[in-house]
C-alpha cells in the first residue's frame, strides 16, 4: 500500500513526511487525491460517495489552503473533512447507512476482497471504521490517526480496540 511513495509522484519520499507535505495545492492535489479517495472508499464502502467526498474536501482544502498547508498532515485533514461531509450527506438522506446496508439494498460499494471481513466491517460504526482504515490501510501510527481525525490518542486506541474486538467476534460467528 501507499504506492504513491514509490512512484514518480513522490520521488523524494517527501510527501510521506508530514512536515514536508507539498506546500503547493496543485502538487498536494495530484499527489494525495487518489490516496484520500481510496481511504474514504474503504471507510464508506461506497465509491460514488467517496468520490464526491474527496472532491468536496479537496475544494475546501484549497479554500483554506493557507491554513491547511501548514498542518502537519494535510492529507489527514482532507480525509476528515471528506468523511464528515459524507456522513452528513448520508444522514441527510434519512437513510440508515451502515456499510453495505442502505435501505436493505446493496450500495455501489467496494469490491470485497474478504467477504466475511467486509461484512464485519460494514457492521462497525463509521468512526471505528475510519480508525481501522487509517491504521491498517494508511499504516498511520496511533498518534497520526488521532491528529488526522482530531481526536485524542486514547480515543483512537479505544475505538481501535472495540473495532478489532467486534471484527473478531463477527468473523468468528460467521464461520
Amino acid at each position: 500500500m501507499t504506492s504513491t511513495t514509490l512512484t514518480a509522484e513522490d520521488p523524494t519520499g517527501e510527501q510521506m513526511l508530514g512536515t514536508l507535505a507539498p506546500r503547493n495545492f496543485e502538487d498536494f492535489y495530484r499527489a494525495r487525491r487518489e490516496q484520500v479517495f481510496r481511504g474514504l472508499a474503504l471507510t464508506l464502502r461506497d465509491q460514488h460517495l467517496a468520490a464526491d467526498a474527496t472532491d468536496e474536501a479537496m475544494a475546501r482544502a484549497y479554500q483554506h489552503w493557507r491554513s491547511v498547508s501548514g498542518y502537519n498532515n494535510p492529507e489527514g485533514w482532507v480525509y476528515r473533512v471528506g468523511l464528515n461531509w459524507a456522513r452528513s450527506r448520508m444522514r441527510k438522506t434519512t437513510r440508515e447507512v451502515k456499510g453495505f446496508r442502505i435501505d436493505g439494498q446493496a450500495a455501489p460499494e467496494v469490491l470485497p476482497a474478504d467477504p466475511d471481513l467486509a461484512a464485519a466491517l460494514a457492521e462497525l460504526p463509521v468512526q471505528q471504521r475510519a480508525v481501522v482504515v487509517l491504521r491498517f490501510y494508511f499504516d498511520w501510527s496511533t498518534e497520526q490517526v488521532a491528529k488526522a481525525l482530531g481526536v485524542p490518542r486514547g480515543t483512537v486506541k479505544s475505538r481501535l480496540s472495540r473495532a478489532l474486538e467486534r471484527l473478531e467476534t463477527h468473523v468468528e460467528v460467521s464461520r
Partner: protein
Amino acid sequence: MNMEDRLREAFDQEAEHLHAPSGSPETAVRRGRRRRASNLIGGATLILALVGGTAAGVQLLGDTEDPPEQDLAASSVVKETDESASEGPLPSAGVVDFAWERIALPKPNSTNVWDTQVVAKDGGFIAVATGWDQQSGLQQLLTWNSADGLSWSLTSTELGGERTIDQVLATDDGFVAVTRTFDGSNETIGLLTSTDGATWTEGEIDLGPIASGQHVYFSGVTASGDGTTVVGGVIETEPVEPPVVLEAAGVVLEENGGQGTYTVTDLETGEVITEIEAHEIWGGSPAIYGPDGELLLVVPLEFLEDSVTADSGLAIMEQDGIRLEFDFEEFTYVATEVSSGNVLASGTQDELYRNPRLRIADPETGDLIVDMDMDQFFLAQEKAYSQGNEYFPESSSFVLVTDDGETWSRVDVAGNDSQQADVNGLVYGADGFVLTINRYGPEEATREVWRSTDGRDWEVSASDDFRNGQIVSRDGMYYSLSYDRRPGVFSSTDGANWTRIYETESGVYFQALGSGELGLVAVGQVEDTDLGPPLSVSKEGRTMTLDYVEGRLTVTDDEMDAVLRVIEFDIYDEDPPAGIEVDEDNFGLTILDTDGTPLMVLTEEDMEGAESEREIYEDYTGPTPALAYSPDGANWFTVSTAGLDVAYPRSVAVGEDAVVIVGEPSDQYSREFGSDGSVTQVLGDDGVSFSYSTATTLVVETEAPETFVWVGRPR
C-alpha cells in the same frame, strides 16, 4: 493470519480496484474559490469539519484572533448598507408567476458538457460550453443557437491534441475561451474569441515572464465594449520555505526563491557560508547507504519501476556485488553482500529516496559544518514551519486586453499585496470598464475598484470592504450580486458606492445575474448549510450550545435563563480556543468562565449523546432554485419556480420575453443512494458530470448525461 494482517491484506486488495474519477486541481481551485465566496456569506458556510465530530470537532475550534473572513464580510454589510440598513430589509414586492420548461440540448451521446454559459443576442439565445468526448478523449467548444429558447441547434469546434478548455466566458459582445496546453513540461495558455460562438479567432498572448513557482489562473470574468475585450486573471506565486535553524550546527538554511538552491549562513553572524543544491539536502537518485552514511549502491530507476509491476511483489537485482531485494508488498528493502550474505542495509522504501544524513562542508576548509541525522533536520524544519505564519502564496492581478481578438497584452493591475486575490467583477458600462478585485490577508480583506476607458490604463477609484459578485450594467447603472450575511442585489452609479435594492430571504444565495430587454433576473438556490442544527448538552442546570453555522459556543444557566459565557470560534482551526480545555485522555472537555473557573465539564458520553440527538433533526431536501426579477432595476419580485428543477444555476440570459438558465438538474444532483443499475452522478457544482454504473468496479459509461437549459416566461 491475525486480524490486523487480514485487514491490511483486504484493504490492499480492495484498493487495487479503486481509482478516483478524473479530476484536476483546477476544478478544485475553481470550486474552492466559489466556496470561499460562499463563506463570506457567513451563515452559508459549507464547512463540515465539525458535523458529527462531537468533542473531536471541538479540537478544531480556533483562536478567534485569527483573521476572520466572516467578520470582515460582516463589517462590509454595515458599511455598504449604512443607508439602507436603517430602512430595514428590502423584501420582494410580490411574486411573479413564470412558466418553466426544461429543454435538453442536442449533443453527441458520448460528450460530457460543462462550464455552460448562455447569453441573449440578436433577439435569440446562444449557449457555449466545454465538451469532452469520452470516446476520443478530445475537448471541443460547443455552441447552441436558439431563436426562442425552446429549439436549439448545435455547432462544435474541435480543439484537438492535448489542448484543454480552462473556461468559456460570455461577454456582451460574444465569447472568450481560455485554453491550456501541456506538453509534458510546459503549459501554454491560449485565448479564443467569438462573436457568434461558432467561429473562433485564435489569439496570441503576451503573458510576459512567468517564473518557476508561479501559476496563472483566470477568474471567470470578462467584458467587452467599444471593440475591446478584457479578461481578468491572477498570478499566484508559491511561498518560499521558512529558514531552517540548525542550532547544533550553528547555521541557517534559506531557500533561494524557487531556484532549487539553499543559502547556508552562520546563525550568529549572519554571514553566508556557502550555497548548496536542493538535492544535497533531500537526496537525488534513490540509493542505499551503509551504517556510516557511505554510498553503497545507486538504485536504477528502471529496477524500481519494474518492481512495481512484479507479479510476486518481490523484485531482486544484483549490482556491484550487492544483492537488493525490494518488497513491493511491504515497501521494504534489504541489501546484502553477495559474497558473504551479510546484510548491509535494510529499511523502508522511502528511505531510498533521501539522504541518510545531512552533510554540508565548508567550501574553503572542506570541514563538515553540518553532519546530522535527517530526522533531526526534519524536526528543525517542522519547528520552522510551526513558528512561521507568513509562508503563504502571494497573488497579483492582471488583465489581458485585445482590440482584435488576435493580439492580447497583459496589463498588471497591481493593488495591495495579498496572499489571495480574486478578480471577481468586470463590466463595461457608460464610463468604460470597471474591474473589482477582492484581496485577502494576511490580516485583512479589501476590495479594490479599478476603472479604465480603454482596458489598458487602469486607476483605482475605491478601496473598501464591500463584497460584490457578478456585475452587469444597464441604463447607466451597475447592478451586482453581493455575498454577505444578507445576500442580495445592489445598485450603483459608479461601481464603487452600492445601495442594497433587494434582500434575499434567509438561505437564498444568488449565483448569476442577467440583464436584457425583459429586465433583470438574479438566479441561485436555497442553500443547505450542511452544518445542521446546533448541538446542545444540558447538565447540572446548565446548557452548552454549539452553533457550527455561527461558530459560537454558548453556556446558559437553565434556571435563570441567563447567558453565562459566549465563545466565538473558527471551526477550521486545529486548536481549541481560549476558554475550552480538551481532555485528550478521556475525550471530554471543560468550558471555562472568563476567570478560568470551570463552567461545565462534559464527558465523551455527554457529547456523543447530544450528537445523536442532533442527528435526528437533520433532514436533507437538496438545493432548490430561487429567482428574483425586476423589470426596471428598482422593483424586485420573487419568481415562482414550479417546474424549475435546477440546482446550482450558473448562468442566466434575459431576452425579449424569456429567460434562459443553465445549471445542474436537481434530480442529477440529488442522486439516490443504493439505486440499482446505472446512475448519473454530478461531481462538481460547475456542472462537471460523470456517469457510472453501480458495478463493483468503477466504470465510466460511454453515454454522458444530458445537458439542459430551462426556459421561463412570465405568465
